[in-house]
C-alpha cells in the first residue's frame, strides 16, 4: 500500500509519455494509451525494480478511469442541445438518419452473421454506429479543414450520432442491467431508463429558470464543487435504479446544457475530462490481455471493412443529398469513420453485463484499427477519391489541363 502513489505515478508517466508521443506525431492519443495499457498490466513480466503490472493499484486506476467515463459523457451531455439539432436543418437530419440507420442495421446483421447472441449483436451494432467526436474534431482542425463545405455536415452528423448514442445507451442499460430474465421485468426496466431520461429532458426544459438561479454562484471554487457533487451523486444514484452511471452523468450534463451556465461548466470540465479520460483509455488497455486479441482478429477485421464501406457509402448519400460534390461527399465518410471513446463505452456496457468475453478484445482491436486508419484515410482523402473516381467515373480527373481549360473559358455567370 505504501507504493500506491508511486504505482499511480508510474501509470501516469506512461499515460503522459503516450500523450506526448501522440501529440508530437499529431495523432489521437486514444490508440497509444490502449496499446501501452495492453503492453503493461498484469500480463507484463515483473521487471523487479519497477512494477509495471499495476496489481496493487489496478483498482484505483480503474476507478480513476470510471471517473473519466463520467466526465466524457457529462461533457457530451453539456454540448448536446435539441435546439441546435432542430436548427441544423434537414440535410443534417437526413444525413444523420441514413448514417446511423445504415451502420446500426449492418452492425446488427454482422453480429448475427458471426454467430453472436442478440444482446451481443445489439452492442456491436451500437459500437459500429458511434463515431468518435474527439478524433474527428481533432483531425479536422489538424488538417485545416474546418472551413470546408463538408465539415458542417460532418459535425452535424456527429451531433446526430451523439443523440443516438444517448438514447441507445439508455435503452441498452435498461435491457442489460435489469436483474430479472423475464420479459416483463426487462420491459419495465427499459421503460424505467427511458422514463428516467425523459424526466431529465423535462427538467432541462421546464426547470432552466430555477437551475439558472440556483447555479448563479460567483466563486469558481463553490461552483465546481456544487457541479461535481451533482455529477457524482446523480451518476451513482442512477446505478441504484439500473441505469448505467455513465448515463446518469450524460443526463445530468443534458439537464445543465440549456442553462446559461453551460459554457462556464464546459470550460471547467474540459481539463478533468482530458485527464481522467486519458486514464480511462489506459485502464481499458490494462484490462485487456494481449493474448486474447488473436481470438478477435477476424471478427474485428470484418467489422472494420464493414464500417469503412458503410461510412463511405452513407457519407456519399448524405453529401450528395446536401448538394456537395462527389469529392466533398467522399471526405465525409472517410473523416467520420474514426472510432474511439464512445465505441469503448458502448463495449464496456456489454462487458459490465457479462456478455460474450470476445467483446473486449474485439472492441480493443476495432477501435485501435479505426482510430489509426480513420485519420490516415482522412489525410489521404484526395488519393482515395482519385481511386474511387477511376472506378465510378463521377467527374473528369482533375489535372492541370482541366484547370487551365476552366480559366480560358469561364462558366457563364
Amino acid at each position: 500500500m505504501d507504493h500506491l502513489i508511486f504505482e499511480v505515478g508510474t501509470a501516469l508517466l506512461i499515460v503522459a509519455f503516450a500523450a506526448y508521443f501522440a501529440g508530437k506525431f499529431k495523432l489521437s492519443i486514444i490508440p497509444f494509451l490502449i496499446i501501452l495499457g495492453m503492453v503493461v498490466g498484469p500480463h507484463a513480466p515483473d521487471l523487479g525494480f519497477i512494477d509495471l503490472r499495476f496489481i496493487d493499484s489496478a483498482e484505483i486506476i480503474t476507478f480513476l478511469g470510471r471517473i473519466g467515463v463520467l466526465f466524457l459523457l457529462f461533457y457530451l451531455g453539456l454540448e448536446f442541445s435539441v435546439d441546435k439539432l432542430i436548427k441544423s436543418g434537414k440535410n443534417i437530419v437526413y444525413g444523420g438518419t441514413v448514417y446511423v440507420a445504415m451502420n446500426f442495421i449492418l452492425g446488427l446483421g454482422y453480429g448475427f452473421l458471426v454467430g453472436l447472441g442478440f444482446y451481443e449483436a445489439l452492442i456491436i451494432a451500437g459500437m459500429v454506429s458511434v463515431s468518435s467526436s474527439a478524433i474527428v474534431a481533432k483531425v479536422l482542425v489538424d488538417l485545416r479543414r474546418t472551413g470546408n463545405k463538408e465539415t458542417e455536415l460532418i459535425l452535424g452528423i456527429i451531433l446526430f450520432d451523439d443523440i443516438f448514442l444517448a438514447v441507445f445507451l439508455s435503452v441498452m442499460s435498461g435491457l442489460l442491467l435489469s436483474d430479472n430474465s423475464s420479459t416483463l421485468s426487462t420491459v419495465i426496466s427499459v421503460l424505467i431508463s427511458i422514463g428516467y431520461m425523459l424526466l431529465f429532458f423535462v427538467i432541462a426544459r421546464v426547470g432552466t429558470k430555477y437551475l439558472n438561479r440556483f447555479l448563479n454562484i460567483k466563486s469558481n471554487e463553490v461552483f465546481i464543487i456544487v457541479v461535481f457533487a451533482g455529477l457524482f451523486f446523480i451518476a451513482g444514484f442512477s446505478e441504484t435504479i439500473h441505469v448505467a452511471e455513465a448515463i446518469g452523468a450524460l443526463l445530468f450534463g443534458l439537464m445543465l446544457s440549456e442553462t446559461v451556465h453551460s459554457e462556464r461548466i464546459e470550460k471547467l470540465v474540459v481539463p478533468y475530462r482530458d485527464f481522467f479520460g486519458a486514464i480511462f483509455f489506459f485502464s481499458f488497455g490494462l484490462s485487456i490481455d494481449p493474448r486474447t486479441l488473436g481470438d478477435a482478429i477476424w471478427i474485428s477485421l470484418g467489422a472494420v471493412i464493414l464500417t469503412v464501406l458503410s461510412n463511405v457509402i452513407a457519407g456519399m448519400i448524405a453529401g450528395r443529398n446536401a448538394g456537395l460534390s462527389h469529392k466533398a461527399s467522399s471526405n465525409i465518410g472517410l473523416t467520420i469513420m474514426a472510432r474511439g471513446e464512445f465505441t469503448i463505452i458502448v463495449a464496456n456496457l456489454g462487458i459490465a453485463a457479462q456478455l460474450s468475453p470476445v467483446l473486449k478484445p474485439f472492441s480493443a482491436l476495432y477501435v485501435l484499427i479505426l482510430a489509426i486508419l480513420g485519420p490516415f484515410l482522412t489525410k489521404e482523402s484526395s488519393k482515395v477519391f482519385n481511386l474511387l473516381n477511376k472506378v465510378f467515373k463521377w467527374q473528369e480527373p482533375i489535372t492541370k489541363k482541366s484547370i487551365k481549360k476552366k480559366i480560358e473559358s469561364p462558366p457563364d455567370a
Partner: protein
Amino acid sequence: MNINECELPGIGRKFETITANNDRIVIIIHDDGNREVYHYDDNDDEESISGVTFTDQEARQFASIMGGMVYQPKTLESINLAINDLIIEWHKIDVKSPIANKTIGEYDVRNNYNITIIAIIKKETENLLAPGPDSRLVPGDTIILSGARKDVKRIYQDLLAKGRD
C-alpha cells in the same frame, strides 16, 4: 456583403462570405479562442489555397487593423472630426510638405483656402493657440485646422500631402 454564419459543434462557429472580388473567404472562430481564415481556389471552391491561424490576441489586433480602428497616438499622422460640413483636422508637418519651414502668412491660408489654423502643436517649444500669420511651421509640428470639407481637402493636397510619399 452577405455573410453566412453557422455552428460547428465541438469546434466553434463558421462565417463564410464571397467578396466583391469573387474570393470565397471562410473565418472560423474556435471555442478555444483561436481564429482561422481560409481563402478558397477560384476554380475549385472545395480546395483551400491558403489559410492562417491567429491566437485570440492576434485576431483582435488584426481585426482592429483591418477595421481601421487602430488608435496609436504616438504615430498619429492625421485625424479628423466632422460636424456637419465643418471639418477639424490634425496634420503632422512632414519635412517635404510644401508648407514646412514657411509661415502661415506666406501662403495666406485664411484667404487662399478659407481655412483657419486653430493651433500648432510644437514638439519642443510651447504650443501655439490661434497662431498669427508670422507663425512658422517646422517639420514635426502638428497643425489643427478647420474649414469646409472641400477647402480642407484642397489645402491638404496643395500644402500638406505632397511631402507624404
